[in-house]
């Protein structure tokens, strides 16, 4: 199979497994889901290194979201 198809199938499988896995564990924090989505996105990106039509806006958005989640968590701990 073409490398890009394997990449998309792997990413879809990982995202689906994260949702099913965390839902089974009754996880109700959305930031946990988003953090794991970000990790799985960058892991598949590093493994398959797909080409892009345009700059990686998805990666940038996920990275910003992940950074904000971490920043809020750190602030929460420091201000406690």
């Amino acid at each position, binding site marked *: 199979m073409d*490398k*890009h198809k394997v990449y*998309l199938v792997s990413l879809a499988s990982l995202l689906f497994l*994260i949702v099913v896995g965390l839902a089974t564990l009754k996880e109700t924090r*959305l930031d946990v889901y*988003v953090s794991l*989505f970000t990790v799985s996105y960058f892991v598949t990106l590093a493994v398959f290194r797909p*080409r892009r*039509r345009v700059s990686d806006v998805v990666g940038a958005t996920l990275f910003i979201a992940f950074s904000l989640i971490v920043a809020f968590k750190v602030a929460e701990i420091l201000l406690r």
Partner: protein
Amino acid sequence: MGFGLAMVFFGVPFTAFTYWILSSVPLTALGLACVILGATIMITPSSPVPKGAIRAMVEGSCVNVETLLEECNVTEKAFYLPPKEGRVYVFVPLRSNPHLPDASEVMRAPMRVITEVRGSPGLLIFPPGSELTRLSGLSSGSGLEDALRHVLVDFVEAAESVKAVREGDKVVVDLVRPRLRTDFPRFRRVLGSLVTSIAGCVLASCLELPVVFDEEQGDGERVRAVFRVIS
């Protein structure tokens, strides 16, 4: 592209609906996953390069080089020169010379088809791998193996994997399952097979020193090429 767009169009309202109306985090996450996947599909080209056509064009570009080498009856091994204006050139001596010229001499060779180094005539050829190396956007600080993998495996998809080892002045490049064919005997003898020639261009570009194609061994599954770095 259309499927990705459909996933994003489904995912966005689904996420909003499940978050604010249903207050279900797992379903919201599912909607977000749809958006991420849809957007990823949209920015990932379904057929990034028509591989067959590109490979045929690259293979076809060897014909001119082969003709020139045949015409000049060249038998000496090629020197891959570091990029000048972003392009790697190949110097091929027309006469046998047991003493290799040093790097600065080769790099100072006048830019003509028939040129000379230390009074010894040679051809200055523009190999097919030169433009591929330039277009791949190879970064200057890349390691040898990373650079070879970037160009040969990721950019041209000319081999399944590649390994490179530098031992003193020799660089051994091991290519697994090369996908480009070279049916040009003179080209193979002087510059190596097409994948080896591309590897030579990458090495010259990466090391910023001339490299000489030394030898090549291989079956259909693997190709092992040896280059010598001139400093």
